């Protein structure tokens, strides 16, 4: 199932072969399995922004979020033969993205542990991940310039993983409780409890903005 780079060239022939956007995720997956590269393009079209947004709110780092979002689709593509349509594709792809994000956070923690700069952090920064200065041009300058958004992003990033994932999925991405429970592989009650607890922690951190 070699991927043809020409698939993104946007020729007329390819456009005519574009699948109907009304097709369900499962139909697109089946088409991709059958070798229809345009069907996979449609899957990316549907999920690239939600996944990028989810990872951005999770990691509070746009470049890293984009990189992991791309990695998510690469993994979906190579594992597509093993995908079973027994459950929602959205749950499947969010679970992959979540696992990648968790791995990234743990990798950062290890880096932080070994970094001497961690010794000189002030107490105020103890809950914030160590981030080297990013001098690259910012993709969404308007968003970053918003002080309130930055503070909220920091507060979310400072949440423990087990609260951060469900809060972001619920309040930012708009997933249902059932979907979140499935993505996190938790019971519905536990999921609701964690969302509530996560909101409570955020409320304490963001008192000034409420």
């Amino acid at each position: 199932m070699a991927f043809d780079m020409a698939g993104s060239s946007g020729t007329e022939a390819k456009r005519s072969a574009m699948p109907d956007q009304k097709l369900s995720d499962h139909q697109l997956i089946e088409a991709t399995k059958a070798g229809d590269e345009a069907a996979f393009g449609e899957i990316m079209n549907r999920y690239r922004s939600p996944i990028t947004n989810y990872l951005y709110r999770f990691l509070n780092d746009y470049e890293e979020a984009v990189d992991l979002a791309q990695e998510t689709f690469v993994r979906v593509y190579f594992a597509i033969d093993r995908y079973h349509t027994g459950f929602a594709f959205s749950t499947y792809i969010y679970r992959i993205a979540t696992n990648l994000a968790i791995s990234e956070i743990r990798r950062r923690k290890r880096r932080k542990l070994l970094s001497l700069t961690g010794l000189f952090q002030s107490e105020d920064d103890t809950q914030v991940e160590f981030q080297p200065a990013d001098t690259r041009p910012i993709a969404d300058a308007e968003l970053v310039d918003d002080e309130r958004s930055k503070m909220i992003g920091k507060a979310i990033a400072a949440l423990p993983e087990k609260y951060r994932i469900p809060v972001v999925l619920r309040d930012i991405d708009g997933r249902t409780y059932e979907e979140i429970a499935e993505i996190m592989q938790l019971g519905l009650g536990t999921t609701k409890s964690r969302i509530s607890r996560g909101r409570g922690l955020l409320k304490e951190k963001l008192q000034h903005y409420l």
Partner: protein
Amino acid sequence: MLREEKRLQDFADAGEEKVAAMLGSLKRVDAPADFDFRVRARIAQGRPAEKRVSWFPTFARVAAPAVMLAAVGGYFGYNALYDTGTVNVPVVADSGPVAPAPLVVPTSNEVAPAPVPTTEVAAAKPPVNTEETVAGTPKKEPTTVAKKPETPEGGSVDMALREANRPGNVVSTGNSSPVIPTSTLSVREAFSAMGIRASLSASGWRVSSASGRAAAAGLKTGDIIETVNGKAVGANTVFDEKFSGSTLRVKRDGVAIQISL
């Protein structure tokens, strides 16, 4: 009471709702325009190699070389400590009596064995457990030597001296006169061990006095000692350390007499 709890619950719910609303009001971030192209490029490169996760924990990866360095450093440090000679005294002290001889040698200055220079003995055979040599040897050797007093009559010094004094193993210092190793006996020492005092004259070793078992066996002043245990006695004759004089042939008034001690 129930009303109060409900009020607090409503307050909490209201706070959560505010947070949820605030999070929901955040602007959404979109994927960059070249997102699809980059994904396809990655796919075209082939299946991503799984990041190799080392089973070795990070802490251990740092600690293992540190421990090895400490071990190596400790080894050399320990050896350096021994090289300074701090352990010389106990090692030498453990090696037992220095040179016990089978014969009871009188402590008079005349017959006392001449002290042998340590360096000369060390040159004859290496494993001599003197202070100078121990200071230069690695830590292991003195320890081993100290633990092996193989002979009942003495320690390693005695063994080394015996080794140096094997027949034919005469140490030469470059002079024409041979150096008599400590464990051999000169004629005077041999005579002294038998209770005889004698001086070398033109006719041979003339007895000047006899005491102890020599006197008891009938040796008299003026006797000329010709042989001891069948061995002719000259000016430079030496006897083995295990010498025990038992038979003398002397000339008394021109007549040869056999005397058994």
